[in-house]
């Protein structure tokens, strides 16, 4: 499965996949030489070229430095489409619609918290269900409530006592995407979602306690409440089975739509429909509803994380924990961008990529307006994660997008083989990182060596000007599925 696509180096951090064959535009990959070498032998670059085949694409098919082989779009892929001639593709969003991350900053310092980290990780593990098929017995949504979640997202959660109103302005799109149509979500999807709100799930999803270990921009860090040593909680999850089912349900329709509208597909997983078509409108309504479910899911998990902090450190610790930000990784959105010097509304697909709007952007809440949008980049559970800010460079070059994480370097099979003779839990504990997980298998598959060093990815983003480093966080306790 190797790629035969030609690649040209533009500069130290940019590579062009020149338009050829059925491609309608170039591909543009952000990476340094080492990261490009990591792509040899898989199909990620071919997938960038495949995305460039889709009708109505505006600008290049873009890939972030954490690009890796996905299905349809590569993971780390960004593409914008014209509203009249372009398409929406569920393969450009992914199965885990609005998979994303949120970061909470506590009022505690790591030195205050360290003696009680064991109690904290146990409380988080008890309070936030994780693992394969995780569900909650205390939050089972009746049909009307589920429809409220699908329509209103995090706003529904806050109105029902999960969090505080101030949380909403620290969430992308204020935690509610317009255009959600609960009626477009199938009964199957609703059935899968009704007991999964407030659960982390499994695989690479997690709840991670960390602290601010290094600061790159002290003024911005202070504005975000991320002073040196501050204890933080990172949450990574998405729309759970409900979102997977929404995507799955849409694919047969989109395959038929691709044939109906005579859209040639280099990969069936890129099946799509013109944005103005009834097929696209149906998917759009269901996708936004699933995205709202994901916002509400992370809002509930943050609520339970605050409760766990309160149980261990007292009620004041829960009350003084604030939401730094919450971002989507897998989404398609209508946004206004400048294309060839003129403002234009386009449909931006981000699959394994993060929105990174610059200072002054009108969609940002007033408290972020002069800073730029906070961007959260988790790494692996043994090393570090980053907080960045959106930049003008991202707005100019990448439709206001940047990377989303480290990207895997080992398959799950390779990771398990490497971990088998070792005890990864003990190794992490010896480094001062406590792990609670439903199975040892997940910990082995998610071992730190399974991922690229996220600092390589973030350094490229920073150097290329499509993100700006603020702080580095180091993990001290992790709940894995």
């Amino acid at each position, binding site marked *: *499965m190797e790629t035969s696509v030609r690649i040209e180096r533009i500069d130290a951090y940019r590579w062009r996949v020149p338009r050829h064959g059925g491609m309608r535009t170039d591909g543009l990959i952000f990476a340094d030489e080492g990261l490009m070498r990591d792509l040899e032998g*898989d*199909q990620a670059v071919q997938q960038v070229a495949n995305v460039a085949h889709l009708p109505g694409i505006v600008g290049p098919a873009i890939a972030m430095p954490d690009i*890796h*082989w*996905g*299905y*349809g779009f590569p*993971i780390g892929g960004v593409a914008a489409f014209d509203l009249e001639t372009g398409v929406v593709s569920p*393969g450009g969003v*992914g*199965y*885990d619609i609005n998979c994303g991350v949120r970061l909470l900053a506590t009022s505690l310092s790591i030195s205050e918290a360290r003696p009680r980290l064991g109690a904290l990780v146990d409380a988080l593990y008890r309070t936030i269900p994780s*693992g*394969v*098929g995780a569900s909650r017995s205390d939050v089972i949504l009746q049909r009307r409530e589920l429809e409220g979640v699908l329509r209103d997202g995090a706003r529904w959660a806050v109105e029902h006592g999960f969090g505080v109103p101030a949380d909403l302005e620290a969430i992308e799109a204020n935690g509610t995407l317009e255009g959600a149509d609960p009626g477009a979500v199938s009964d*199957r999807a609703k*059935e*899968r979602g009704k007991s999964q709100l407030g659960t982390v*799930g*499994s*695989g690479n999803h997690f709840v991670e306690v960390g602290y601010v270990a290094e600061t790159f921009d002290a003024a911005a860090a202070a504005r975000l409440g991320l002073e040196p040593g501050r204890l933080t909680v990172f949450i990574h999850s998405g729309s759970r*089975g409900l979102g*997977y*089912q929404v*995507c*799955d349900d849409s*694919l*047969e329709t989109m*395959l038929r739509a691709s044939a109906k509208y005579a859209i040639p597909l280099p*990969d*069936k*997983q890129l*099946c799509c429909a013109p944005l103005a078509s009834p097929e696209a409108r149906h998917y759009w309504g269901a996708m936004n509803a699933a995205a709202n479910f994901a916002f509400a899911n992370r809002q509930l998990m943050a609520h339970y994380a605050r409760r766990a902090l309160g149980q261990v450190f007292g009620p004041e610790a829960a009350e003084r924990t604030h939401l730094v930000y919450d971002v989507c990784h897998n989404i398609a959105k209508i946004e206004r961008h400048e294309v060839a010097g003129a403002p234009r509304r386009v449909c931006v697909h981000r699959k394994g990529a993060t929105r990174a709007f610059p200072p002054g952007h009108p969609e940002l809440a007033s408290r972020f307006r002069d800073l730029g949008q906070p961007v959260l980049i988790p790494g692996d559970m043994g090393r570090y994660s980053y907080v960045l800010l959106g930049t003008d460079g991202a707005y100019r070059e990448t439709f206001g997008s940047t990377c989303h994480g480290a990207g*895997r*370097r*080992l*398959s*799950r*099979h*390779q990771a398990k083989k490497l971990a088998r003779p070792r005890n990864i839990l003990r190794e992490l504990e010896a480094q001062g990182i406590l792990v609670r997980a439903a*199975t040892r*298998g*997940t910990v082995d*598959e998610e071992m730190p060596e399974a991922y690229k060093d996220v600092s390589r990815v973030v350094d490229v983003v920073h150097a290329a000007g499509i993100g700006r480093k603020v702080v580095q966080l180091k993990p001290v306790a992790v709940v894995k*599925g």
Partner: protein
Amino acid sequence: MPYRFLSHTADAAVVLEAPDEAGLRAAGVAALRELLLGDSPVAVALERPIRASGNDTAERLINYLREVLYLYDAERFVPAEAAAEGVRGEPFQADRHRAIREVKAVTYHGAEVRRGADGGLRATVVFDL
């Protein structure tokens, strides 16, 4: 073994080989069962019907496996083997079945079935993990 996993960084890719479409479904169920449950034993106790349509062999195979995964994920029906018009298996029992991994979906990525020189069928399927 009628299936073998390929190296895939983020997800799971499997090659299925069989003389006919029914054999591909059987191999696909075996591969999916291994991903979901490792080597947990699964009894052939019940049969659940599946009607999988599609424009070609690849789409029919993917659509069949999507239904098997849905039954597992939404109804906790553990697949043991493919049947002519469905899938055989048993309800999930925590004391006998070890759910080792979440499989989000059976994708259409690169979905293709080819006939080899020996007349047999060969399919590649990518599962989203």
